[in-house]
């Protein structure tokens, strides 16, 4: 878990990159709960997404989960590497396993800090 990330209660993380774009992925905790991820279904470039609504799905050997957008914005890039190799969500959830980049305004205030998210996911 990293201090420069913000977290949603739906177990996505958000990081603002140097271009001001929001990078979105699923958390290490969520990846661990899912088990081995074998498929990710992501929105397409130019899709508008909004916070708290379903933007795709993520599938492990055992289950399928909806992916909820943590923010409002429009998709500018999709991580083709994670589409081709979904196991990146398990091996590197917060780095190589990022899902999409989004043009957005200020991050919603209800996103959690690392400390708050750790509290949420504490068994």
């Amino acid at each position, binding site marked *: 878990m990293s201090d420069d990330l913000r977290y949603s209660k739906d177990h996505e993380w958000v990081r603002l990159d140097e271009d001001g774009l929001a990078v979105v992925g699923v958390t290490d905790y969520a990846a*661990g709960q899912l*088990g*081995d991820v074998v498929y990710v279904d992501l929105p397409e470039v130019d899709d508008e997404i909004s916070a708290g609504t379903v933007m795709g799905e993520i599938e492990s*050997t*055992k289950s399928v989960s909806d992916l909820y957008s943590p923010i409002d914005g429009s998709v500018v890039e999709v991580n083709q590497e994670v589409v081709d190799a979904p*196991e990146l969500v398990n091996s590197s959830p917060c780095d190589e396993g990022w899902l999409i980049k989004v043009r957005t305004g200020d991050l919603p205030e209800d996103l959690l800090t690392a400390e708050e998210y750790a509290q949420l996911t504490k068994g």
Partner: protein
Amino acid sequence: MVEHALRSTALEAVHERLGATFTDFAGWRMPVRYGSDLAEHAAVRESAGLFDLSHMGEIRIEGPQAPEALDHAFAGKISTVSVGRAKYTLLLTESGGVIDDVIVYRRAEDRYLVVANASNAAADLAALQERRADFDVEVIDASAETALIAVQGPASAEIITGALTVEGTEAAGITEADIDALGYYRFLEGTYRGAELLVARTGYTGEDGFELYVRAELAPSLWDHLTAVGGQKLTPCGLACRDTLRLEAGMPLYGNELGTELHPAQSGLGKVVALKSKGDFVGRSAVESTDTSELPVLVGLAAQGRRAARAGAVVRTTDGTEVGTVSSGALSPTLGHPIAMAFVRPDLTAVGTELVLDVRGKDLPARVVDLPFYSRS
């Protein structure tokens, strides 16, 4: 988190130590995986996996009329099973539905062990208690004091031989020659640390493998012993890979492919019901009088891509007519494409039939294939 009153097996501390992720399975706190469920799946296909299956129910049937009692209680002919052999059979309702699918081990002329699914153990015990009424036989719930550890995979015979037959181990009564000669659905009886140990060549993975029944308090010691002998060849495996392994092997899962509202013939288990070789038994008249020819039938379906249809997904013909429902589905780790078992209209079961799976709103073309999807070479 809310603490539920989950039951735990004698191996819970071992699983905790190994860093398992747990799940609630039929009221039990069971390891779903230790690390990667794909790696665990591959370990069973390529080497060997170690499973805690102690949540399953063990019921002892003992007494002079045990064979007759079990012929009455079960759909299969149990009285003619030889000592040292096991048989897969069904416990039926009066109306011919399936209460459970079980394995019955014959330990002596007058002693059997019935191994039940965890989710049905209580129902099985109740049904067997009721069905024993007219027979001189005892029905004893041995679930709490019995642990079940499975070693499954091509390296399992080597590991079991090393763990149980070598001088200096705490197992006794079983030799290397015994293991060598042990056929599928046969079992041996020996001891581990002086307590009874039943070693069966049975499993639920489609691989060669063994299931070991041992006193619960000895399970952690036996697990550690198997781990030490197995070394790199033996990987602890959770229930996630157990499900993908059995699905690839085309084996039914109670609650998905079997249930009280399904007739055995629909699940491809018509032959398990011994209509010809024995007299009356619970469910017989219903099975005989029910015309199942119009009812949905279980088939295997294979598709391309990475998205799997899951239990409950609707099956359609290529022109959009709804003709069935998926009972189990996953992306097959061994085959690399989606597989499913589904109940479909009986005129659509021919291998090669083109169907369409509704995968969460998107159509996935699929075709009927032979079961099992995977069989070991």
